[in-house]
């Protein structure tokens, strides 16, 4: 805007409402003149309930200066609907705002409102992937993606996700958000397009996948958490003892890769759990592993490993 709002003839009919009128604030905020004008005029049009194209211009100014101004977003959306503005055009603008402020809650909620109205998930998923390129762990981006999948619940959308996640894990095998998303698409009950056979196949596939990734880079908390999660996924009841000793979870295959940093604390922990699950016979082995963690391999969590020892000994004594 070249001219300031108070100087523009097309805005003279609006009565701006200042922030501090008859109020003594505890900690006054000192705004830039442009932001002050925009929000004063915003309060003015809200007071009269105006919904018009110039309101879109005004709210855009505000949210560009302060993307967290949730009232401006809300009023903007109401205006868009009331004046039947083009939501497709709004999406184009929102894409730019999303890339500018990807960590703002409000911009993602606005996308959700727009998509609920537009119902165009395929390009939305593509845009989502673009935003993840800039920050592969952005919590809002992933959460929005999960919402899209469940909200539209279309087989073609779900189907593309496995290869998408594999692409991201290939770039960073320690991306916890990607691992979480993988669990979500493999086991999430919100996918009504999946069959019982798909679910069983998912457990087998996921256990194998997790083990392969662990063999490549064993010091990866996300992958180990995933392995446990997949083994105990509610859709497929697996006996805890079986997991340790059965071929279903063949612990020798695959072997760790050449460059793997060993020994790996998470693997030691896993072995301890396997032995603990065997009951009295496995106790001394489990304690040996936990001791090595407490004293050598994961000393920062010494208290936790000592708790595991006490707890297992007490339980074994009780049986």
């Amino acid at each position, binding site marked *: 805007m070249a001219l300031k709002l108070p100087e523009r003839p097309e805005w003279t009919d609006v009565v701006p409402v200042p922030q501090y009128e008859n109020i003594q604030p505890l900690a006054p905020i000192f705004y830039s003149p442009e932001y002050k004008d925009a929000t004063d005029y915003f309060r003015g049009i809200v007071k009269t309930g105006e919904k018009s194209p110039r309101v879109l211009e005004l709210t855009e100014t505000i949210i560009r200066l302060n993307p967290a101004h949730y009232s401006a977003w809300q009023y903007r959306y109401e205006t868009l609907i009331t004046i039947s503005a083009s939501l497709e055009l709004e999406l184009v603008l929102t894409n730019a705002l999303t890339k500018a402020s990807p960590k703002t809650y409000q911009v993602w909620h606005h996308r959700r409102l727009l998509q609920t109205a537009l119902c165009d998930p395929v390009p939305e998923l593509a845009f989502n992937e673009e935003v993840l390129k800039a920050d592969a762990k952005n*919590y809002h981006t992933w959460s929005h993606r999960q919402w899209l999948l469940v909200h539209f619940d279309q087989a073609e959308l779900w189907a593309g996700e496995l290869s998408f996640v594999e692409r991201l894990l290939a770039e960073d095998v320690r991306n916890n958000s990607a691992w979480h998303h993988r669990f979500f698409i493999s086991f999430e009950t919100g996918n009504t397009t999946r069959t019982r056979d798909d679910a069983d196949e998912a457990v087998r596939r996921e256990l194998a996948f997790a083990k392969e990734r662990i063999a490549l880079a064993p010091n990866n908390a996300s992958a180990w958490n995933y392995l446990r999660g997949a083994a105990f996924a509610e859709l497929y009841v697996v006996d805890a003892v079986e997991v340790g000793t059965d071929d279903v979870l063949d612990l020798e295959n695959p072997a760790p890769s050449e460059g793997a940093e060993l020994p790996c604390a998470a693997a030691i922990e896993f072995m301890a759990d396997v032995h603990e699950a065997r009951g009295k016979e496995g106790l001394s082995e489990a304690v040996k592993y936990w001791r090595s963690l407490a004293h050598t391999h994961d000393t920062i969590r010494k208290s936790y490993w000592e708790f595991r020892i006490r707890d297992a000994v007490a339980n074994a004594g009780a049986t």
Partner: protein
Amino acid sequence: MSDTLLIDLHVQYIRNLGNNKDDLSYHMTAHRLINGVYWGLTALCIMKHKEALDAQETIEYVMSCWDDEAGAFGPHPRHDAHILSTLSAIQILATHDALARLNATRVVDFVLNLQQPSGVFAGDAFGETDTRFLYCAVSALSLLGALDRLDRERTVSYLASCRNFDGGFGRVAGAESHAAQVWVCTAALAILDRLDVVDVPTLGWWLAERQLPNGGLNGRPEKLEDVCYSHWVLSSMAILNKLTWIDSSALTRFILSAQDPEGGGIADRPGDMADIFHTCFGVAGLSLLGYPGLDDLDPVYCMPASLIERMGLKTGWKALPRREG
């Protein structure tokens, strides 16, 4: 680098926030201002300097944030009401024994009307949903003595749907486990006396795993340490009675190293700029770890423990014993 908590400096830092005309720091912008006051006041209470911010002025400021149309509080005068600011308002008024100043009936209605069919809460009319807002609702109703008006079953069932395979909780059902969301879900369950929904061994372990070699805590695997997790993670562990599972001296050293030894305040990590948010949560973490000379914090409400106990709202959490200074 300091190895003690620079209390006087931090008290001064908090006092000065109202006076600094050039301070455009993110946490003091209008959309969080009432939250900033709550963080400042809570930090002062823990450091036993509650009087450093004038009580009357603070109460009047909170009341000026009242949005009469909505029947609740906004983050700053003439801003629309939101559940985040409403909880902060309630917490500040409770801390100053001034809950009688607000219209409890209207606030309770505002809160209850934000519950969605699934059980989650929206933050305001904009409709954004988040377990943070669910926690704000449960805590607000509890502090106002109106928890009986809540649809507990719907609320608890939504929380259960947010529990992930790693024992953690996310922002909404299906979202990744994140320490801040773990805290809001666990604390809400504690208030509702439904900690049975938590897989305690798995979540306790997930929380202990947040500690990095430098002693600091992160919010999810493979992310950076940040002082604010000293609150989210520690409070969650205190609620689950698992605070002994982390190395408290290493964490204490980390928090102290994030102090600004000149201007006061605490930053997200050593070397960064201090802000009121991290000052509050750094001090909160130290209190839970038993740092000498501090007052007890209730990890469920993130408010002075003695106040919550007086209000009859104390639950079965356990902090580390207070050390002699």
